[in-house]
């Protein structure tokens, strides 16, 4: 009933082509944005901003970056964390070496540097596919942290190799409070999600999907593989680079190369697998699952009376439960949480009828 489409006609082509064709979807989005931009900063506390919402948003963005490459263009990659590291360190160096450069410009420049690096490591994709391509992106994952550690110029010769974030100021307004950092992250993430959503509906996005489904067939109908694949790597690198910069600057406030290790790449890969490959919404759902569930378990565990279960075993138990949940979700819905939402939505549209 809520999702009734009756009476919603398109009288112009533009209306037919809009991203959210249903009025309910548009209203839902507006409510969500109002909620995220106005209600949450008003209701939330430091713990929610600094420990839950910011990492959730940043990892959603990182998931989006990888999803463009893997979910839409079909190129497997295990180098996501390396590109995030490039973005973080590039942004830091732009801020450091070009004083007065606006923060958002540094973010974009950092993203562009990450795009360049991703482009270089994407070159082998023209010759190799699938699991073999993973190996080549794995090289990025080992090369980048090594280079960032080896050449101390990247971390401004700091003794321990840890960089600490500059002041967060946009147009003279300071975003250094937890709520401010949340708002800054949210703004960047929402803007980039809007961009990505449009991108995958564009000509390029359709090229990506054609390449993903069968690249020989795509080449036969005249899609330039060279350009399409490399653009996928570059654009994915751009998104990941900005995610890395946000991770370093608005979330942790410091960063060391080891913070972007292979485990982070796996985490991002799991986000898109659980959230849904080839879906924009799936990145949020996957990140929520990966970020919120361990925290929920850990918070629940801390409510247990002390001494009931040995503290070390309690940690292992949480890992077991989390692993079991992943398996259960994937058995119930192999195509990810986004598919679950789609099914729910399809049912809601015809409810109370069955077909």
């Amino acid at each position, binding site marked *: 009933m809520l999702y009734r489409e009756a009476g919603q006609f398109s009288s112009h082509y533009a209306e037919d082509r809009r991203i959210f064709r249903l009025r309910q979807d548009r209203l839902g989005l507006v409510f969500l944005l109002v909620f995220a931009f106005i209600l949450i900063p008003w209701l939330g506390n*430091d*713990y929610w901003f*600094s*420990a*839950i919402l910011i*990492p959730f948003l940043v990892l959603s963005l990182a998931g989006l970056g990888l999803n463009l490459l893997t979910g839409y263009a079909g190129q497997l990659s295990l180098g996501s964390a390396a590109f995030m590291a490039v973005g973080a360190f590039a942004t830091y160096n732009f801020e450091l070496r070009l004083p007065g450069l606006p923060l958002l410009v540094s973010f974009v420049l950092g993203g562009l540097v990450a795009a360049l690096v991703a482009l270089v490591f994407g070159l082998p994709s023209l010759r190799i596919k699938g699991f073999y391509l993973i190996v080549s992106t794995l090289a990025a994952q080992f090369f980048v942290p*090594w280079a960032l*550690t080896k050449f101390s110029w990247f971390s401004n010769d700091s*003794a*321990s*190799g*840890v960089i*600490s974030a500059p*002041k967060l100021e946009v147009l003279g307004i300071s975003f250094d409070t937890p709520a401010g950092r949340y708002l800054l992250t949210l703004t960047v993430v929402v803007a980039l999600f809007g961009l990505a959503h449009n991108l995958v509906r564009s000509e390029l996005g359709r090229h990506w999907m054609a390449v993903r489904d069968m690249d020989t067939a795509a080449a036969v109908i005249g899609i330039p593989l060279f350009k399409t694949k490399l653009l996928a790597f570059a654009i994915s690198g751009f998104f990941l680079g900005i995610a890395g910069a946000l991770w370093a600057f608005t*979330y*942790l*406030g*410091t960063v*060391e190369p*080891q*913070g972007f290790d292979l485990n982070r790449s796996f985490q991002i890969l799991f986000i898109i697998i659980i959230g849904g490959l080839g879906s924009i919404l799936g990145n949020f759902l996957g990140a929520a699952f990966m970020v919120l569930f361990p*925290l929920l378990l*850990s*918070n*629940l565990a*801390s*409510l*247990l*009376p*002390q001494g009931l279960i*040995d*503290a*070390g075993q309690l*940690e*292992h138990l949480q*890992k077991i439960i989390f692993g079991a949940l992943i398996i*259960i979700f994937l058995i119930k819905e192999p195509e990810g949480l986004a598919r679950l939402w789609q099914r729910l939505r399809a049912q809601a549209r015809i409810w109370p009828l069955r077909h």
Partner: protein
Amino acid sequence: MFQRSFASSLVLALTLGSATLNAQAEGEQYFPLQSYRVGPYAAGGTGFFGGFIDYLKYVNAKGGVNGVKLTWSECETEYVVEKGVECYERLKGGLKGAPAAATNPLSVGIAYATLERSTADKLPLITINHGRTDSTDGSVFPYAFPLQLNPYSEVSAIINYIGQQAGGLSKLKGLNIVTLYHGSPYGKETNEVLKTLAAQYGFTLTLLEVPHPGNEQQSQWLNIRREKPDWVILRGWGVMNPVALKTAQKVGFPVNRIIGNIWSNSEEDAAPAGAAAKGFISITTHPSGTDFPVLQGIKKEVIDQGQGDLADPKRFGTVYYNLGVVNGILNVEAVRIAQEKFGQQPLTGEQVRWGFEHLKLDDVRLTALGAKGLVQPLQLSCADHEGGGAVRFQQWDGKQWNLISDWVQADRALLRPIIEASSHKYAQEKGITPRDCSKED
């Protein structure tokens, strides 16, 4: 069906939890523990936090700090930075009205990430025997305390010891020293000061990095064999240490020319290497052993009552465990000293910070605590957040550590200008005006 049972178990867990939480009263002093019991560094985490918790239990069994009972809760970090930050944010507000005294993450990475948060939240950040060296300068870092031994003092003491062995610091000239360090902020922290010391004393220095976690060191040790150094300083952590000792044996480097630093000095570092570790030398700020009255007290009041935190009771009195006890003593003493000024009640982080800055442990006080010989005499001030700066050397005989030297003092006068230069650079970057320590009470 699954969903329903899952939901009901959630509800059950919640009600169980809230029932026990309500039993805790206000009027207690809270210690947020960012502990780690799983992951590659679990041996360090379980030992350290085991000792820390057992000491807090011991203090409670003796009636608390002037009647104020201590309480704590744990949050697992796995030594991972973002988990440590999450735990910090979760625990910093205290527990059921009991205010937080200080955080003790026992991880350089987490300490770096929570440094600015600690200052903003006015909560002391204790990094015993590690941490960011320039936070020794309390005028710039009012809330960070690298207690007992900061990384620079650590290497300075090692170099002084090598000088002693050679027959005077002047004999350091021409020696060849290799430092093998863990590829992390912790491992790299001392590289610059080692270079300074090498230039000052005229020894040759080679720095070799071992990537985290350090279970593959063949190429580094082949390098060392080519170098033929007089000494190797091992700046290891966790699994890197036994692997280093085993690989040294494989390439034929004598183990009694390897000096382990403060995080390469535990039973868990030497014992897994078996025979390869026999003769290995390391520094320590506190001996292992169970003879100290305070440890006997813990045994009687906590462990024999079945309340001990260690899963393996054999680890009682080991290096990590005793470090946890030392850390407990320093934290509780800071609370006690702060209570003299602010009254015998639960204190805020800001008040406990005052206690840390006025921490003074002399032989009389240490004897009263039953910790003479376990904790070094220590005095902190506004400008000096370290306090001690002395270490002893111990050697592994295949079963246990035996002390082989008296206290060796770091050359703190030499290090101070380097520390101040670094802290002032930080202050300038961050726009901090250093406190005037002569005006602090």
